[in-house]
């Protein structure tokens, strides 16, 4: 037999002004199942809570109803009080007679009647409440970080420094990402390598970071706190344990004219190579597409050719037979930091993009993109930091910079603003002017978007101190005319057509997500937008979480981001991950769905509607142990407790704890008596 205690709060005058609390107490005292009923001025105060505890102990109550404010306000408070008195907290409920009654009605009689009704409803519900235990899920205190760019590096280091283990997966042969390609960084113009390289080395040497370079995520199973990641270590043709990074193989390789990806095509590399001297790990990779030996094999030539790198390697680390291998890692959280790619506006265009034939990119050698300019300006670049144009290696006297190439162009390119271009173009003009004092830097822009600490000052500096000439308007045509690159543009401020005879043109091309991001997102079952950027759980309040618990995002995989933002996001994900790892077990509200496997007919209507994929298939066996059917089971680790499955279950085999049919019908019935 239920023994319910009712506690009516005056909330000072807030409730008592319009609700006759004494009458509520009286009326509810006589309600079947109620053994105790009292009121107090401030029920949420310590003495108020003490009343509740006392009553629970004295009348050994089986349920508590607090007629006061909204459960969103004080449910935790009173459930806590109940727990202190040894009552299961989930046997305590609140009847909202403030927000939903005293505050919105003037007529005392009406309000009091309503308050009584609300009290009754909740009493009836509480009669059917059952003790619930908070769900506890074990947590593997190990994080998987996908992507070894600055975001991934920052996330990995922060998490590892926080005491948790980290598995860092990088698809290229070295970590460092785009930042390692940059010459200087805005708005401080400090050298990118100088600030990044130490962090890269830290990653390598960190006792709690395990680095899988030249590897990719093959698959991810499980749920928050309990993921199992399978990682494909791509065949590197070099034994990572034997190699000591001496570089002899690289020196021995005969095919040295391969366009270097790291130099964005402005420099050359050999077939077996480390992308750049400061690479981490400093272990070469053999590019089987361009390797003479493998080319010959593909041509069907039996005899082994070349093999010079193998001969050169004293450690015998070169292994032509090596194949992709797989490792599995147990992790509790995942950070996605796959970064971006620059929109290549050349002849081959991805579906849905028209490209910019009129800009001659890919045809005119002296029309390059931002990353190529970075390499030309970089001290570690192919020109040793001298800005020389690709066609004839001469220093360009006039350089035109075109902003918004592909960005903010819903018709031919991409509708969004790539955000970093205004800043890096300003930086480029400075780098150029600092190296070529008599040079002329002309920038075509639509708007200058330099929001950020010290950003606008930076662009101003480019214009006012370094004398970059900014022209507001778009460029309509770029072509090679003998020795010069003709640039046709329009100055919308002066209303004149502008034709520039440039020596070199730098296109600030748009930022796009990495290729293959969609496949990755599917592997992780996280969502992405129409451009391929990963969706955050909430654009303002949960910017580094995804809609899948335990998976977080950092950097340019979520939207165009600059370095400071990427780093900030990375540290934010680290905080999230470390928070998740702070307890040995995850505590979850027990208000989750529960399947009655006896009555489940295995139609899996629930599976169709579950937004979280929490429904699992379970085999049921007959007495001999033969599988005789499949039923649904809810994974409490994943279920968020929306109850949609309950409503659609045709056999009424699912219940949502805390909101069972029984409880809700009891509430409805209670209302029947008004």
């Amino acid at each position, binding site marked *: 037999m239920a023994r319910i205690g009712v506690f009516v709060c005056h909330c000072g005058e807030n409730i008592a002004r319009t609700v006759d609390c004494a009458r509520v107490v009286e009326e509810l005292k006589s309600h079947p199942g109620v053994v105790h009923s009292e009121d107090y001025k401030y029920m949420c105060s310590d003495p108020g809570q003490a009343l509740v505890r006392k009553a629970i102990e004295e009348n050994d109550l089986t349920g508590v109803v607090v007629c006061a404010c909204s459960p969103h306000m004080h449910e935790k408070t009173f459930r806590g009080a109940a727990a202190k008195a040894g009552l299961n907290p989930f046997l305590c409920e609140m009847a909202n007679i403030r927000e939903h009654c005293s505050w*919105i009605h003037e007529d005392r009689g009406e309000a009091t009647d309503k308050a009584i009704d609300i009290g009754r409803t909740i009493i009836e519900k509480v009669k059917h409440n059952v003790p619930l235990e908070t769900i506890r899920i074990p947590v593997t205190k190990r994080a998987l970080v996908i992507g070894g760019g600055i975001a991934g590096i920052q996330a990995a280091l922060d998490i590892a420094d926080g005491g948790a283990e980290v598995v860092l997966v990088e698809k290229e042969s070295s970590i460092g990402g785009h930042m390692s390609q940059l010459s200087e960084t805005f708005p401080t113009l400090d050298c990118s390598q100088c600030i990044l390289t130490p962090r890269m080395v830290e990653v390598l040497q960190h006792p709690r970071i395990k680095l899988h370079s030249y590897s990719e995520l093959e698959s991810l199973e499980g749920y928050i706190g309990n993921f199992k990641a399978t990682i494909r270590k791509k065949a590197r043709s070099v034994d990572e344990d034997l190699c000591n990074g001496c570089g002899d193989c690289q020196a021995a390789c005969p095919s040295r004219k391969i366009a270097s990806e790291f130099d964005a095509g402005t420099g050359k590399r050999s077939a077996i190579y480390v992308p750049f001297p400061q690479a981490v790990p400093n272990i070469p990779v053999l590019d089987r597409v361009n390797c003479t030996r493998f080319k010959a094999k593909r041509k069907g030539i039996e005899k082994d050719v070349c093999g010079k790198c193998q001969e050169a390697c004293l450690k015998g680390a070169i292994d032509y037979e090596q194949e992709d291998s797989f490792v599995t890692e147990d992790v509790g959280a995942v950070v996605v930091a796959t970064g971006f790619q620059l929109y290549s506006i050349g002849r081959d265009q991805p579906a849905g993009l028209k490209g910019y034939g009129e800009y001659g990119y890919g045809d005119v050698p002296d029309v390059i993109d931002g990353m190529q300019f970075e390499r030309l300006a970089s001290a570690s670049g192919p020109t040793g930091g001298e800005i020389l144009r690709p066609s004839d290696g001469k220093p360009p006297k006039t350089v035109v910079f075109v902003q918004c190439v592909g960005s903010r162009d819903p018709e031919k390119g991409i509708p969004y603003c790539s955000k970093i271009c205004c800043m890096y173009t300003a930086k480029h003009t400075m780098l150029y002017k600092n190296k070529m004092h008599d040079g002329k830097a002309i920038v075509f822009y639509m708007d200058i978007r330099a929001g950020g600490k010290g950003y606008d000052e930076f662009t101003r500096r480019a214009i006012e101190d370094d004398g970059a000439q900014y022209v507001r308007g778009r460029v309509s045509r770029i072509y090679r005319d003998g020795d010069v690159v003709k640039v046709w543009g329009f100055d919308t401020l002066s209303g004149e057509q502008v034709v520039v005879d440039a020596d070199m043109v730098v296109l600030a091309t748009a930022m796009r997500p990495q290729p293959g991001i969609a496949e990755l997102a599917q592997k992780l079952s996280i969502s992405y937008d129409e451009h391929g950027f990963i969706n955050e759980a909430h654009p303002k309040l949960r910017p580094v979480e995804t*809609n899948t618990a335990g998976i977080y995002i950092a950097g340019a995989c979520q939207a165009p981001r600059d370095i400071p933002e990427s780093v900030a996001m990375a540290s934010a994900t680290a905080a999230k991950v470390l928070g998740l790892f702070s307890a040995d077990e995850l505590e979850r509200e027990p208000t989750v769905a529960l399947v009655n496997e006896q009555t489940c007919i295995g139609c899996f209507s629930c599976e169709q509607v579950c937004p979280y994929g929490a429904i699992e298939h379970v085999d049921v066996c007959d007495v001999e142990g033969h599988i005789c059917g499949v039923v649904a089971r809810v994974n409490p680790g994943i279920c968020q407790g929306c109850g949609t499955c309950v409503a659609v279950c045709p056999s009424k085999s699912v219940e949502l704890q805390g909101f069972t049919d029984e409880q809700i019908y009891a509430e409805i019935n209670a209302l*029947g008596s008004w």
Partner: protein
Amino acid sequence: MDFQPRITAFVCNWCTYTGADLAGTSRLQMAANVRIIRLPCTGRIDHMFIVKAFERGADGVIVSGCHPADCHYTAGNYHARRRFGVFRELMDFMGIDPRRVTFSWVSASEGVKWKDVVNETVARVAELGPFDAYHELAGDTITGGEPAPDPFEAAGGAETSDPLEAHEVGR
């Protein structure tokens, strides 16, 4: 008016319940005829709840949750909307005037809208007069355990009409 309709409201915990809280904290005065039953999500609402409410003497029902795409549980309100499509057909069949049921979206920030939904529903139901056909409603009055018709049976047809729109008020 002399007749005071009795309205039962099924609202989701995250949007409408919070919206109603906001109405309270903003001291928005409204009709006192509504009794709220809090659910985690409109997706949880089995439409037998509504039938049961009428059977227990409610003259009108309000069902309100998050706006489309705002669902705390990403999709619950869509499934709800889809099922109400089926339910509307059912109501005619059971002899319940569809105007007695208000489907609405009230977000956590729409205290004012909640007030309007309440007042307009109360006014509408008041005009329709008491719902006295409840004793004709089939089923055991205590547990209300009638087998609910499979909501997906007619779901296909449901998608064409949009009940939440059909009766939405307080825009």
